[in-house]
């Protein structure tokens, strides 16, 4: 006779991990079903030292910098931050998560800890207008943010961007240190603050999920500049840390190597169908409640199969532009040896002063992702491009501009047949930015780059990445109060079901420009908390 588990949580990423933690904390029995692909090849090769020392001394550095199959040399539209030690993020996704799209750069993950294994650690608290537009309750989210901040550790400070991305956070750690180039930009902003604020521009530090003080078994960052390669201190929060801790709890069981394909509801339980990644064998699990935390695209696949729906679902993803800039007064100077590769300073552009449709700019200096990736973007011979970028790199500031996204008829996903796929289907994605949105984004980018110019940081070009490149996806099952098909109730329950809950961003009706990761974790916690209370009452 089949075992009926208390709760099944699907996925070990940001949402699965925190939904599971909340359920386990509340005494519930949890089975986590996960693909759980791991990286074991390169981690042992990365020396436990700072990036420059590794570059100067490690004779085997080519193995972890470029990869044994040279997979760390991106060509075309490949993501430059997918270094060999991080390539397991996308391992198996082509086969098991087929996707049909043009002009859409997706990233989905089957790895242990999900896409959180590659998170840039920006942990934004959304503004009340943003949360309300998304269909979320700001008061409840505040509780969720506080819980997650305590669990994962956030480095933050009060400054001009706090109202846009850090309001209400308490008990945070001191902020990450900035390197000289970024600190100088901030000082120049401070000197002309009133003028910038009059333009709707605020500059400051977004909360970061990086430890600047020890927390439990994790250690504070040593500023080794190795975030894209290794993190032996576990200073940057990753969801696998939560799952590792849960696996020591008696009321938690982890089953890896499985792809959840669909579910079906019976009178007193949910049947969850899976395929084994090591051969494709089918296996079914049963639970009183099912919590999907497989990411917006993954959840869409499972739900579309389960409710047998051919109609499209809406999709949200942030527009994205990278502007390499030269910080003129830094020409001829090198960066510090001790630094971070992560975003160091943010700029918020809020022309309407309403805390809605704000643009978010992250500023990075550049070293650890290697010079050849910059050189290949320069329209010169490689030898000349290398010489130019070598001279400029200490003064390079990368500004990444994120735009908010609203639902529109040209932005959707749909399930389509695919005879070659193990599941017999694929997800077809269309994300066409409307012409008014494109014009708005262009105008915002020009004003942001003009503001950076006032700080002595001049953009060399704007590179617009395809939709999807931010890896922020949401909105496929928008929150609704009327049980309409393919929607979520406010507590995360999937319309038309009684026992299936969605803990990820599928319900968000709007996607702010600030990264959604902290909100995903907070929402997952709240969905699980509601579920724990409900099952307790039962």
């Amino acid at each position, binding site marked *: 006779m089949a075992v009926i588990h208390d709760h099944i949580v699907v996925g070990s990423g940001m949402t699965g991990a925190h939904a599971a933690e909340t359920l386990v904390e509340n005494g519930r029995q949890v089975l986590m079903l996960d693909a759980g692909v791991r990286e074991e090849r390169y981690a042992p090769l990365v020396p436990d030292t700072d990036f420059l020392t590794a570059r100067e001394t*490690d004779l085997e*550095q080519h193995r972890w*910098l470029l990869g044994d199959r040279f997979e760390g040399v991106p060509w075309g539209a490949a993501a430059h931050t997918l270094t060999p030690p991080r390539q397991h993020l996308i391992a198996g996704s082509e086969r098991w998560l087929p996707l049909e799209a043009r002009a859409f750069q997706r990233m989905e993950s089957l790895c242990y800890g999900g896409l959180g294994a590659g998170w840039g650690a920006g942990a934004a608290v959304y503004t009340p207008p943003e949360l309300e537009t998304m269909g979320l309750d700001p008061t409840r989210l505040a509780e969720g943010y506080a819980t997650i901040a305590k669990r994962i550790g956030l480095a933050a400070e009060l400054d001009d961007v706090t109202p846009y991305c850090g309001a209400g956070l308490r008990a945070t750690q001191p902020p990450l240190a900035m390197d000289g180039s970024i600190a100088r930009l901030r000082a120049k902003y401070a000197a002309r603050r009133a003028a910038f604020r009059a333009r709707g521009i605020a500059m400051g530090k977004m909360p970061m999920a990086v430890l600047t003080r020890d927390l439990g078994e994790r250690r504070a960052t040593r500023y080794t500049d190795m975030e894209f390669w290794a993190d032996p201190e576990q200073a940057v929060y990753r969801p696998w840390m939560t799952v590792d801790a849960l696996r020591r709890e008696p009321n938690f069981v982890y089953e890896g190597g499985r792809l959840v394909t669909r579910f079906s509801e019976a009178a007193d339980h949910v049947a969850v169908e899976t395929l084994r990644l090591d051969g494709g064998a089918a296996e079914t699990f049963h639970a009183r409640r099912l919590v999907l935390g497989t990411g917006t695209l993954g959840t869409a696949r499972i739900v579309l199969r389960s409710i047998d729906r051919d109609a499209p679902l809406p999709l949200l993803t942030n527009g994205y532009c990278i502007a390499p800039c030269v910080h003129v007064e830094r020409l001829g100077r090198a960066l510090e040896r001790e630094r971070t590769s992560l975003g160091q300073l943010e700029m918020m552009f809020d022309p309407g002063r309403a805390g809605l449709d704000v643009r978010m700019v992250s500023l990075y200096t550049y070293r650890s992702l290697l010079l*050849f990736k910059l050189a290949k973007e320069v329209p010169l*011979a490689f030898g000349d491009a290398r010489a130019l970028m070598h001279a400029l790199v200490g003064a390079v500031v990368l500004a990444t501009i994120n735009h908010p996204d609203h639902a529109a008829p040209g932005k959707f996903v749909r399930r389509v047949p695919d005879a070659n796929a193990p599941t017999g289907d694929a997800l077809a994605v269309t994300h066409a930015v409307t012409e008014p949105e494109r014009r708005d984004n262009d105008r915002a980018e020009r004003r942001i780059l003009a503001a950076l110019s006032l700080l002595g940081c001049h953009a060399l070009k704007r590179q617009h990445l395809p939709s999807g490149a931010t890896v922020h996806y949401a909105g496929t099952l928008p929150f609704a109060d009327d049980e309409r098909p393919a929607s979520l109730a406010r507590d995360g329950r999937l319309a038309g079901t009684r026992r299936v809950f969605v803990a990820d961003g599928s319900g968000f009706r709007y996607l702010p420009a600030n990264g959604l990761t902290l909100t995903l974790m907070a929402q997952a916690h709240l969905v699980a908390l509601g579920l724990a209370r409900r099952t307790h009452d039962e």
Partner: protein
Amino acid sequence: MSVVPLGTDAFPGTDDAFVQALAQRLVGEPATTREIERWRDALACHGAALVARRDRRLWALMRRAPFLIGAVDAGLAWRDPHGVIRQRLCLLLAVLEASPAHVARFVDQPYPLVALAGLAPRMAFAALRVALGLVVVLVAEAPWP
């Protein structure tokens, strides 16, 4: 260990002398034997074979006249920036960067203002190389026998 089978010429036109000329052009220093071997592995892994006639012509030209390496590269940077010749050169640049032997050519360091000023004539030559390279590439694309 090399992934290119011994005794085969999987990527013709990648003899040591020519690779040294390419390395000299890219970083102003010779490549080591292991770096050359590593680059051939990279070509195999990326499948960077010269399929198009134009690319074969340009590669042969670069071998015959190494002083045109920079011009061909510069012309392709505008005409076909994601083509296979640029990919081959990018792979070599990456291999050279991922080696302690050439770290000073890649890692940021204090850059004297005199040296910065010296970049101006080099960039002027770089622009001329683009112009020359575009002509060379267009000629190579012409349908001559």
